């Protein structure tokens, strides 16, 4: 008879407590098991293609000290939880916690070697920090805007509908009054930014052209809650998230379609944790349009002679699916690439850090509003990487990435065009 196997007494080593609520105990577990292996700082070794683009964490690359890395945040969490440090002990704690773009680069690399959820731990830390220290002054306007107007851009609710005005003739359904299978959820940034709203207009035109039964919420659309969630203001996030799920369920839509990577990641991943159950599927517009392209419902007629590189938005990619230990870090990686390859004249060339290894644009996690210089530095690093491919255009599909990459590119000697995928598609239709 074989000797009985000696397995760890702590059941969390036998199976990661995925379902357990993310509380102090879970945060401590993740922090305690950081082995200081430093994989959170570098692109996975098998994927390092050059010395220049070997790093994964923008914050650590810029600020250098280990405190500003995934490992350092684990050390900080442990010190706080074990009572060795308080949130107010050091003003730099604010920077360590909130400069981070919550891009999940460290999180993805860490998942190769252990079962953990670093970004969720950061979110828990931010929430705990805010309980004691209050929200960051830099994030206050955004929070006030969410509370007063249900959007992040301090815009009146009625303006949310403005992007649909030029589509009046298309007869797009108002899902507050009518039924449709598909809800096109524009998101605050695409919907309210003068610079970006043309993209969502293009999407609506494409959907209409191929006969999709869809509608919008008009000025009744609320923020998805992502900015509140990423910055640790969880009560506000829960308010918005719960309201959205209820509303979508009531409307009976089958698919919620969003062009915004931030909305997408939040709805696909964070909404899963809310008590309200979702009776609908969340898709990024690229996923939906790729299906239509494959089915030949979308046919590109015009040539667009350009060499492009695709920037993977973090929350559409590695942070775009709920975590299942041991399973691939799936995300929307292939769909936009397939669309680009199907556009006549477009040549797609890849950067070194792509898919789950992508370098963040720098605009997420509250860095865009709280730490502009750092956000734009991160964007410049990405633009440099894109330039090295020989492409003349960065194509992406996230309003935060587009905005921040453009802001980062200001002042750079050699300009790089930043274009939304759907705008490029429109040129070819």
């Amino acid at each position, binding site marked *: 008879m074989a000797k009985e196997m000696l397995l760890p007494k702590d059941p969390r*080593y036998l199976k990661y407590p995925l379902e357990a609520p993310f509380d102090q105990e879970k945060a401590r577990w993740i922090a305690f098991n950081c082995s200081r292996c430093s*994989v959170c*700082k570098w692109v996975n*070794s098998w994927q390092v293609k050059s*010395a220049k683009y070997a790093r994964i964490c923008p914050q650590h690359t810029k600020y250098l000290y280990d*405190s500003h890395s995934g490992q350092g945040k684990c050390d900080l969490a442990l010190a706080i939880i074990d009572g060795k440090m308080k949130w107010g002990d050091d003003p*730099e704690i604010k920077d360590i916690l909130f400069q981070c773009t919550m891009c999940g680069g460290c999180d993805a690399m860490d998942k190769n*070697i252990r079962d953990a959820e670093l970004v969720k731990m950061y979110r828990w830390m931010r929430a705990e920090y805010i309980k004691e220290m209050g929200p960051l002054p830099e994030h206050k306007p955004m929070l006030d805007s969410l509370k007063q107007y249900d959007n992040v851009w301090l815009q009146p609710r009625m303006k949310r509908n403005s992007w649909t005005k030029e589509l009046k003739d298309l007869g797009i359904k108002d899902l507050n009054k009518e039924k449709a299978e598909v809800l096109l959820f524009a998101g605050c940034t695409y919907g309210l930014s003068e610079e970006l709203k043309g993209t969502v207009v293009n999407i609506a035109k494409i959907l209409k052209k191929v006969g999709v039964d869809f509608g919008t919420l008009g000025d009744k659309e609320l923020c998805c809650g992502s900015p509140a969630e990423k910055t640790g203001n969880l009560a506000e996030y829960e308010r918005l998230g719960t309201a959205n799920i209820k509303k979508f369920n009531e409307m009976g839509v089958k698919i919620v379609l969003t062009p915004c990577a931030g909305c997408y990641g939040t709805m696909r991943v964070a909404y899963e944790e809310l008590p309200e159950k979702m009776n609908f599927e969340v898709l990024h517009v690229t996923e939906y349009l790729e299906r239509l392209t494959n089915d030949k419902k979308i046919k590109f007629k015009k040539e667009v002679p350009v060499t492009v590189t695709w920037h993977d938005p973090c929350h559409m990619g590695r942070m775009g699916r709920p975590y299942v230990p041991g399973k691939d870090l799936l995300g929307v990686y292939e769909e936009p690439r397939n669309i680009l390859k199907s556009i006549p004249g477009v040549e797609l060339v890849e950067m070194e850090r792509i898919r789950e290894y992508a370098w963040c644009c720098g605009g997420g996690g509250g860095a865009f509003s709280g730490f502009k210089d750092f956000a734009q530095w991160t964007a410049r690093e990405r633009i440099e990487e894109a330039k090295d491919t020989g492409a003349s255009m960065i194509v992406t599909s996230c309003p935060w990435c587009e905005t921040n990459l453009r802001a980062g590119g200001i002042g750079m000697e050699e300009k790089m065009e930043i274009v939304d995928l759907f705008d490029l598609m429109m040129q070819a239709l």
Partner: protein
Amino acid sequence: MTAKAKNDDRHQQILNAFQSAIGADNVRDNPATVNAYFGDFLPPKILGMSMPPEFVVLPNGTMEVQAIIKICNRYKIPFIPVGSNQWSLTGSPNRPHTVIIDCKRMGKIHEIDEKNMYAVVEPLCTLAQMQAEAYKRGLYIGSPEASATASCIGGHVFQGMWGVGYRLGVAYRNILGVEWVLPNGEILRTGSFSQDADNGFWGEGPGPDLRGMLRGYAGAMGGVGMVTKMAVKLHPYPGPKVWPVEGMIPNQTSVLPEDRFKWYMVKYESLEDAVNFMYEVGRAEIAGVIQKWPTVYYIMWWSNSCEQYWTEWQKRTFQDNVKNAVGVCLWGFSSGKQLEYEKRVLEDIIKETGGKPVKQEVQDMWVPRQANNWIRDTHGSRMMRASGTFLALRLQTDTLKYAIDHVRQGYEWVDKFSPPILDSDGPDWIGGYDFGHFGFGETDFPVEKTPEAIGDLMGKLLEMTKQDVQNGLENGIGPFLGGVYHAMAGPVFGYDRLLKGIKKAIDPNVVSNPPHNFPIEN
């Protein structure tokens, strides 16, 4: 750092001195920053024996390192140089007022000389970075299975048991010219750097080979100053310019081109037969890598989650299929014909030694997913998967044959203290190096990660090491690496006076990561 220390005049003077030498942005003494420099999976942290440093400094270049070390001497405060900071081992402060010299601003590759096959690197440059640049040029540098995330310099001075070391020499034999700042602040350049600070192609002299101060069996642990620049050998590489990877995290696979690389997994009835096979392969002077991995390594590297680790372990997938198995990777360094020749030789040896192929399905599980970690590592840190930590018994470098006795003694010890040692199926890692001229044996096992369990085991390991010293260290070297160990083991081999003399001469104020590389404090 305590509030008391912060208000201390002396603290302020030292802070001012550092800031003046390398700029205010590059010096930190605040609690949130220093708190990130003493963690690890290893016992000192778990047992609370480590403490945060008083300062962390980020120099840029040899002159700034020299300035910092001179300040440390002026104030008689200890410093610890760290490279990429992958695992701390002995990089965690163990005494008050420590300064961490973090190399985050020193990551350049100064030169890659393709013709003469060497590169000159700074301390932050990782093995993965160096590998990527070498591959592009048809050149190769190894990485230990503990991770290619390790500093290239750190990986060369500390042990450096890379898989391809079997063919190309372990890492510490691949060091060429070195530039380093001694503990007293003097700059030392060895090999060809001594003649020309930009030219590192040659490692010897002038005079006695001073690289021995730095490397040795497990490096000097920061006890002899800080290396700021090193030239390392590169080797011809028959592989692709970009490392081939399929799939996604955490299930990536890597398959190297079949016309130049071929893995064999060969199983034997006994450990003796397995080691005999390793000898024969070495004697034939073929292969790039030869390793007899313990079953616990297979599961550690292979599993993609805790659940998969323990589920598969309980199914005994690896225990029943790879016990006494040897992994051999043939390299066609010069041509496909070389690989074909080596295949024929290896297959003859397998036949003559009674080897049987490991079940194909098990080989298919292992080879694409993990075997190439011995060529370019990416999964080494999975060693923590089973229980959050692991410990090692003795490390042994001797003959391959002696490695058998070594690991067998390890089984007994591991059994005796299980639990808190967890199931590990007689862990017996035996690596062949220099075509079998020497063998390496190590006994690694998962353990319950509690201060009580680890504290208890550390006490027992220390007892065992003391006993080993009394027995003339016939059983290998204990896991207590660095200065304290040299103090215990030095008298056995008679090298303690030499190490002590060197430490006294170059580190009169005992500032370079004491007690390494030899304890000389009162």
